[in-house]
């Protein structure tokens, strides 16, 4: 979708609450946001739920979206990264993660089962560790790891200077690596 079309759709949603336009806009970004969510949850259902929540939040606050201040993708990722930070820190999520039976983890169909389980388990470990970090750093890591975003993009999404993002990212990575080595 080109920028002009996107701007047109957003205007239509803002002014008329046009359902068709909203569907078109969400469809255009669905896979991208889904992928961002999937890489962090490793679970199709959870990722779909999350994607739904992110888009819902976006549509509900679209009246306040101002194209002059940020691009739509930037704005969407900002919402997504806030949602994710909150989700992984919520007590409900932690409880679920610690009690979930292995059989219930929905796993990809390819590769050996052990391998898949190992991957999902690693992901869970990483998530729990990241969730303890301050919000801003969490957002940076998530966008970098799972959103495959460049530092400039991250800086834009979080409204921080690019230098700050870089410094924070590398300091945290160093810290996490030292921690892993100690164990």
């Amino acid at each position: 979708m080109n920028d002009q079309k996107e701007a047109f759709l957003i205007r239509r949603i803002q002014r008329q609450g046009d359902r068709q336009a909203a569907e078109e806009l969400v469809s255009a970004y669905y896979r991208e946001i889904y992928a961002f969510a999937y890489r962090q949850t490793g679970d199709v259902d959870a990722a779909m739920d999350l994607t739904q929540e992110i888009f819902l939040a976006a549509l509900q606050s679209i009246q306040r979206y101002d194209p002059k201040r940020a691009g739509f993708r930037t704005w969407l990722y900002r919402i997504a990264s806030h949602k994710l930070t909150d989700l992984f820190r919520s007590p409900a999520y932690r409880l679920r993660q610690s009690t979930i039976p292995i059989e219930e983890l929905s796993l990809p169909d390819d590769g050996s089962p052990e391998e898949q389980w190992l991957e999902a388990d690693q992901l869970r470990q990483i998530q729990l560790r990241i969730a303890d970090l301050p919000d801003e750093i969490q957002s940076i890591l998530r966008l970098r790891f799972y959103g495959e975003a460049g530092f400039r993009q991250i800086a834009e999404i979080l409204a921080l200077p690019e230098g700050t993002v870089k410094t924070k990212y590398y300091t945290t990575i160093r810290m996490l690596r030292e921690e892993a080595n100690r164990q």
Partner: protein
Amino acid sequence: MLKVCDVTKRYGKFTVLEHIDLEFTPGVYGLLAPNGAGKTTLMKLLTTLAFPTEGEIRYDGVEIRTMNAAYRELLGYLPQQMGYYPNQSPIQFLSYLAALKGMDRKLVPDRVEGLLELVGLLDVKRKKMRTFSGGMIQRVGIAQALLNDPKILILDEPTAGLDPSERVRFRNIIAGLSKDRIVILSTHIVSDVESVANRIVFLKDHQVALEAAPEEICLTMRGKVFEISLPDTELPRFEQSHRVLSIRQEHNWVHLRFTDGDIPAEAVPAEPTLEDAFLVFFR
């Protein structure tokens, strides 16, 4: 989850709140602070009556200003000064606010009746509110905050003007409400929140000084609080060398709770209370 992220509030050059970070999940939060520590301002920020100079407040990941009407639908608020129209009866007043809260008109009468029963005002439901005592008005205020079954209930000094029996009733109401909702109540009276709050937030010098469960706070004081009985003539001397937390007079004797200073042999260790912690913290 309601989240306050690095919020600073200034009015002109005067800083009222500085770098506040808080997270609220369903449960009762007691916001304790001496007057003027920024309690009311924090309440205003949480109810969108004022906006942070820096930082933001988010509900489930979305900034509350962006949510606009959707956030107000989740909110129940009792301000420090409950405003009302003296000529209205509680039924009229509550129906009026129910309309403003956009409730389904058919459901309003039952809801209003139910709430008036909860706060014990059913027998005066048609009386004009100008004849009400401060405590009764406050109870109407609590009923009004509950009208839309809010997910976030914010009560600013809700027990001000209530007599002791009303306080007890109020505590029971609050305890029954905290399921599935965030209840934040500010007060400067420790006993109001001691038994009902799951978490206590201390505000001091415009910042969050402490956020913990009441038991954890008491635990930090364990072994530091003592009781002693003295003839009242010795009180001034004792007060100079110790930090006295409370005094109870009986004939010519005074019973003291204290902390700090050297511990006399007659002193007995006492179970610390939240009140003790509050006094130590804010003196």
